[in-house]
């Protein structure tokens, strides 16, 4: 199956937050009491029952005294997903045929390692400590429907479809560089940024921690060899040299 993806276009977003609402509605996530923080952005961060939200960024300049950016923040469904690499429980985080990174709360053991390994600070934990994040509406996409956020977006700021087509679409709209096209093996959520990603709250070059990469690429394979090697060495030693018997009769000191 071709890899599916989301295309997020902040320039089209009007900040209505229908995506936040539609996501809660489809995924049956409760509303939460929030605080007035003196702005329109609300809530201020992802929570265990808020899988996507609109980040409000004020970026005024001389040319554009009123520039307000609305950016849909969510799990990026990375191809090289730090969360999946560090997760110790098989099946807790899994790849759907569409390429989404979904979580299964029954399998999650609540170790919270995935948050440390996620370059986008996405996973949150519910009151039982289980990983709770956007799963690209696994049940919808499995039935060939767009995720709730994309389906509901009135301006087309979030669209869903074949990932290659999403990239082509952004390029046709004039975005030479699509954020996420090649990062981390290719993100499942692509962003059409008019300016540098920093302005929108994203890292120029998102990266998985070097230590995690080094562990997976180098040490993990070596550990098989190391541990298997000593076991083999013990067998060889036993056969070739043999046990060290301390004999009583040659005890004359």
């Amino acid at each position, binding site marked *: 199956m071709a890899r599916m993806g989301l295309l997020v276009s902040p320039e089209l977003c009007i900040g209505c937050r229908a995506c936040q609402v539609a996501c809660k509605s489809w995924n049956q996530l409760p509303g939460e009491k929030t605080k007035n923080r003196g702005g329109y952005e609300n809530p201020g961060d992802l929570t265990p029952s808020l899988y996507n939200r609109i980040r409000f960024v004020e970026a005024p300049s001389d040319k554009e005294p009123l520039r307000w950016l609305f950016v849909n923040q969510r799990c990026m469904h990375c191809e090289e997903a730090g969360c999946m690499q560090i997760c110790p*429980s*098989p099946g807790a985080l899994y790849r759907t045929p569409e390429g989404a990174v979904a979580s299964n709360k029954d399998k999650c053991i609540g170790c919270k390692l995935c948050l*440390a390994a996620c370059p986008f600070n996405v996973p949150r934990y519910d009151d039982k400590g289980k990983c709770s994040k956007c799963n690209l509406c696994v049940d919808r996409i499995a039935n060939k429907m767009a995720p709730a956020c994309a389906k509901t977006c009135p301006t087309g700021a979030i669209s869903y479809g074949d990932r290659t087509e999403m990239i082509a679409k952004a390029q046709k709209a004039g975005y030479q560089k699509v954020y996420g096209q090649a990062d981390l093996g290719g993100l499942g959520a692509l962003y059409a940024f008019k300016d540098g990603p920093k302005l929108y709250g994203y890292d120029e070059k998102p990266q998985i921690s070097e230590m995690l990469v080094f562990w997976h690429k180098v040490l993990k394979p070596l550990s098989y060899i190391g541990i298997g090697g000593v076991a083999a060495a013990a067998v060889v*030693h036993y056969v070739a*040299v*043999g*046990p060290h*018997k301390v004999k009583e009769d040659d005890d004359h000191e």
Partner: protein
Amino acid sequence: MNKNDMITMATGFERLCHWSLAISCILLIISGFGFLFKIEAIGAAFGGFNSMKTIHNWLGVVFIAALFLSAAHWLKHALRFDGDDVRWLSVGGGYLSHKVKVPPMGKLNTGQKFAYLMVLTAGIAISVTGFVMWLIPENKQWVLLSFFIHNVSFIMIGIFIPLHLYLGTIANPGTLQIMIGGKVPYWMAKKKHPKWIAELESGKGGHSA
């Protein structure tokens, strides 16, 4: 002392510590292996990954307590090095051939001293980093660093344990006896640990034997 008299190498308490250390360590290695390599069968053997996590965490507490108590017994023997240790290394500890003459050793031989000190270091590292991941999972930088150190220590211990099991059992008949009854015949102790016996006999050994 008669050559067939039994001499105590490990007291009851020392053996209890070592058994707790051994059992917790082996179960930790197995469950840790299950986590690192996501092995369903290992998870199932511990009643699922959820309970394996709880067991792994609390066994870690047993492990570090047993490690400290055990180390308290052998640390003073492991921190003493002299010329015989250099000679021991130059003949490969006699492990490669039974023909070479191995220099006299104390209660621990050079290889044991290095291996035990390595394991003590790895054991402390693996415990501290384990507690970091268990208790402050929100701290990303610490968790990532701990994850790495935890795994590196896991490899070090994972290499040590098969070696230690082999050398402590079939490779050196009579050694396992120390873990079971705590005693070995006097003649054997004198042959394997001449310097320790000499110390004991001169009354400086400081051992309960």
